[in-house]
């Protein structure tokens, strides 16, 4: 196993562990911190793919800006650690059965040889140009629809959270 593979497994496993911490922690601040770590490890995966720009954006936007917002909200609302709850055994059991069936199914499917029909030819390493040009040329329509999507989300937040109903 070379360095590349070792790092890949390290980042992936660390990401999964952090993901589990996010939902298993009762303290919301600790959950948010685990999420930051997860984003950092994900940035590591992008570095391994030589997508340096996306890795940097991942750290700046997700681990930086988005998570700071999360923490602000948690602290402003003063969310307390959630109470210890009794497990609904039927729910846990059902969840395990469904998840197990899914993993089993995936194992069968992925144990067959995976033949890429055509390898991806996008070279992410060339830098900013290869991210920006497709975004504003090839993918212009989805980009515009995303703008509408953000507008809708903003209107929705204002509508659903404003204090006085006139």
């Amino acid at each position, binding site marked *: 196993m070379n360095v590349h593979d070792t790092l890949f497994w390290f980042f992936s496993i660390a990401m999964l562990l952090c993901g589990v911490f996010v939902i298993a922690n009762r303290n919301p601040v600790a959950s948010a911190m685990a999420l930051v770590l997860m984003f950092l490890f994900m940035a590591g995966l992008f570095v391994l793919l030589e997508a340096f720009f996306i890795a940097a954006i991942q750290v700046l936007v997700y681990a930086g800006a988005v998570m700071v917002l999360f923490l602000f909200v948690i602290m402003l609302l003063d969310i307390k650690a959630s109470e210890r709850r009794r497990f609904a055994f039927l729910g846990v059991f059902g969840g395990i059965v469904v998840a197990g069936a899914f993993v089993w199914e*995936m194992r069968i*499917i*992925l144990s*067959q*040889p*995976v*033949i*890429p*029909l*055509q*390898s*991806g*030819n996008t070279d992410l390493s060339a830098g900013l140009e290869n991210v920006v040009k497709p975004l504003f*040329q*090839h*993918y*212009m*329509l*989805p980009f515009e*629809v*995303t703008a*509408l*999507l953000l*507008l*809708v*989300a903003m*209107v*929705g937040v204002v*509508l*659903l959270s404003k204090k006085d*109903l*006139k």
Partner: protein
Amino acid sequence: MNLYATQLECLLVILGLGTLLTDAFRPGGDRRKLGYLLATLVTITLLYSFTLAPTADTFFHGMYRLDSFALFFKRLFLLATAFVLLMGAEFVERFETGVAEFYALVLLAATGMLVIASVNDFILLFVALELVTITFYILTAFLRRQVQSLEAGTKYLILGALSSGFTVYGIAYIFGTTGTTNFDKLATLLSAGGSGSAFLLGMLLVLTGLGFKVASVPFQIWAPDVYQGAPTPVTAFLAVGSKAAGFALLLRVMLAGLLPVSAVWMPVLLVLAAATLGYGNLGAISQRNIKRLLGYSSIGHAGYMLMGLAAGNALGSQAVLFYLGQYAFTNLCAFLVIIAVGREEIADYAGLGKRSPILGAALFLAMASLAGIPPLSGFFGKFQLFAAVIEAAQTNWHYYILAGIGAGAVVVSLYYYFNVGRAIYIEEAKDTTPIPVSLPVRAGLYVCMLAMIGLGIYQQPLVEAATLAAGIFGLK
């Protein structure tokens, strides 16, 4: 050229953004009139859409199509939007705030649906789907003083986010194994070489996300709660617009992009259709709330339409389109009556035929059409779907089982639809005050009733449009 192709979407966006600004420029204006105005403008857009000619070209680097299939669905969505705006105008007193924003959100959701009708690429598919779904989360929770509405919104948000996650995960697998997200390129690649197992996993995950949109078993759990809790105009939009959008995507993805691997997904859809038929129709039997009943019924109808898709022949896909067209009129009619009456328990509909003959007749016709009683349009729609399944059964006997389950579902559905019919005409009313019906609602009801009866007797125009639209897939 690109702008020309998306002109209908552009018109709706301009309308929507303009509506958002009304509160700034005309605070305290008559919101009911605004609703009527917008409904009229959307109707004009609908009429204008008939001047557009379908083209085989693709736009935006092969992402967007304006073929007869896309135009068929765009017209269907515009029709639904006009009716939902009319319903919103009738619902004005029951909103506490943000009526103009309600109209704007409806228009922006409609924009997303129009894009969905033309989608030819997984990236655009996902973004447009999210535009529609996220708008619906907000619309569902719009009556935020009512616990039911909030609960419905939260449920829809959580389950919807999960299903979106499945969809993206699936798209990632598809892109990872084929290196493309374009449906045309995908079809070429798939018919040239075999498909890897990871690709098939991706396809099934995408199917999961789309199954959620059309409320097919096992992704249907949200439908009854959300239908009951959401404001009634939103429920109507979910039942007519959102469901049709889901089917537009299912048809486009499965028949345009993934047709070469139909041997894999057809059996899956066969089982899903049978399970959906059973769940929706059996669940509806014990319902006392009419919106919840229509929620279960919408699951059942998703089952009928999946039957047509699972059949995988030309008649099947054409029948799905016809069914969606007539289902829109039938459901809009039922929801218009529910809004005019303003009550949701089936017991409240006792003696409706005496209290308001037009509402009684409209609801009765809608129920009869949903049940598939000739000569109404629902009968002909079901007839075509069953014919398609029988045709498929000539080569694969499993389809006979599906047809049998479908026939059983029709029989079961007669019971609960006529339960409503019995309340309208046979049961005595406790409260005998007549119900006033406004002129626009009256007009809407006449249009729907005319369509239900007209399309039942003279099916030619819609059948021709559906055949033309389904023809782009080149099925036999």
